[in-house]
């Protein structure tokens, strides 16, 4: 997110800027793919919240370790004969729900702290910056593991801990972006015209921040999903009986020889969701970049 300084070299200004990084998600096509995947996950999550699938929790030992597409099972079964398809679905409210909640917490705190730092006099700004630098410098997973050891497992402790460990990253980005926006000509013009700083914040800075926040949210969501699964994978995330994707992966370690699908199914779900959110974030970022370039 660092701003690139450009020199007004004659040759360069002549040409349409070569894309620095033709992203995997370049073009709207990949962004739409990401959005479709996310939408499917969202609908499925709401679906299993309304009709919890019993198949995810009860199984038949006679039907354990079916391969995908064997005897009418879609994605195969686990060591207790439970359907992996239904377990992955039932895990969505856990995995995606915690990631979503944690991302909301992190983004809310981070945006507030970033704007506070950008809009405060020196001393407060320095305190916030130090706090942010300090928390970022510490391995967030180590922090989360330790705190959860004390708070106990569960949806809310996990979401809160992950959110609290992650907000400084959002704060740093929001701060940098808010500072650069506040130096733009139209903000300066508004200030010279005597518009109050709160009004400037609401009418100029927040709207200009929107693409940044959207991009940050997509990436944070992906990060939180990875972190939630990691903690569950370590056995210190959600309750061990919950079919969260991390828990499923953790269980699968014992049966890599007998049933690799037990690992591959939740792994695919995680990767699919993470890539989808990365695609959206990348796409929005590319669009915002090309728009700001057009303005220049």
């Amino acid at each position, binding site marked *: 997110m660092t701003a*690139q300084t450009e*020199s007004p*070299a004659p*040759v*360069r200004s002549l040409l349409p800027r*070569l*894309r*620095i*990084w*033709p*992203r*995997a*998600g370049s073009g709207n096509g990949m962004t739409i793919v990401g959005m479709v995947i996310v939408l499917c996950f969202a609908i499925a999550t709401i679906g299993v919240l309304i009709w919890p699938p019993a198949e995810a929790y009860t199984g038949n030992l006679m039907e354990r370790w079916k391969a995908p597409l064997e005897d009418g099972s879609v994605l195969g079964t686990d060591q207790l004969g439970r359907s992996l398809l239904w377990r992955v679905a039932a895990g969505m409210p856990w995995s995606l729900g915690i990631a979503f909640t944690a991302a909301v917490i992190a983004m809310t705190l981070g945006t507030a702290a970033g704007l506070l730092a950008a809009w405060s006099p020196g001393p407060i700004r320095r305190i916030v910056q*130090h*706090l942010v*630098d*300090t*928390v*970022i*410098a*510490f*391995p*967030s*997973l*180590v*922090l989360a*593991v*330790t*705190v*959860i*050891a*004390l*708070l*106990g497992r569960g949806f809310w402790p996990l979401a809160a801990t992950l959110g609290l460990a992650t907000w400084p990253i959002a704060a740093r980005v929001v701060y940098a972006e808010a500072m650069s926006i506040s130096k733009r000509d139209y903000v300066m013009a508004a200030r010279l015209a005597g518009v109050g700083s709160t009004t400037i914040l609401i009418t100029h800075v927040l709207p200009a921040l929107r693409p940044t926040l959207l991009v940050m949210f997509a990436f944070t969501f*992906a990060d939180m999903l*990875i972190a939630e*699964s*990691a903690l569950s*994978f*370590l*056995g*210190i995330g959600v309750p061990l009986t919950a079919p969260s994707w991390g828990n499923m*992966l953790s269980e*699968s*370690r014992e049966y*890599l*020889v007998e049933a*690799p699908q037990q*690992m591959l199914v939740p*792994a695919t779900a*995680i*990767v699919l969701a*993470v*890539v989808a959110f*990365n695609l959206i974030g*990348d796409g929005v970022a590319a669009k915002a970049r090309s728009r700001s370039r057009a303005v220049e």
Partner: protein
Amino acid sequence: MNVWHTIRGVLSKRGLELAILLFAISTLLFFLLRLSGDPAAVLAGEEADPDLVALIRQRYGLDDPLIVQYVSYVLSILTLDFGESLRGGQEALILVLQRLASTLLLAFLALIVTAAIAVPLGAWLGVRPDAKTRKWVNGIVFIFQGIPGYIVGLLLIQLFVVELRWLTSIGNQGVTSWILPSLTLASFLAPKMVRVVAANVSEAMREDYIRTARANGASTAQVLWRHALPNALLGATALIGTQFAFLMSGSLITEWIFAWPGFGLLLVQSVERLDFPVVQAAVFVIAGLVFVVNAGTDVVFRLIDPRLRRQQA
């Protein structure tokens, strides 16, 4: 003179951060421990007999007023006294420090693997803006960035241990057992590094000084190695410092997957056993290590980048 000046500058800034960090963590741990119920019960572990709980209560002064407890707690932290492990009774700090070499070995190997992947691949991606294959490689890097390290670890085990039976996946048993853990840990960092190196190289390649170099007859290889990469890698080196914290998070998972005897594994095990003194000691040692690495790369970075060197002078 200049060197010492630089080091002092970095240490004073980072030192303050470390002090704040350790103070914040210790305070957090202190209050969380007391918020979460009877600390003596937590410290004694599950199903501990009442005598032990009473002993611990007395040993840690848990009947004293909260403020007295807090002061004596901070004092003991300041003297690096984290108490003894509740399993085995060894000094917690010693127990953690014994694991230091293993964790550092793993981190070091992972950094080498990361550099071996990221520098050539990143340079190639950055230099060839119009190669068709570049689009594909880009896409693959993008997807790899979406694969969490623990899944990479499991896939590696599935392939090399379960299917091919080439390697072992447990512990540190010599060089062959290093391969999978270091690959796994590298997978946390490598995709990001590839992208950073590629973006830096591609940015450097469009700089005016590259045109100057070419105008003086530099070959494509010279332009890349002697002009673009030195600039691009300076940025990437700075990233290693800031990404070390992330590497330690990855190390936690990697060590757990491969039963690698570092302090990540110790931390997870201690959390599972509610061996609180060890948890605390591990957190402090990791914080200190992150501090040392960050400050170290900061100093090195300032010393090798002429632009920053001037700002110092």
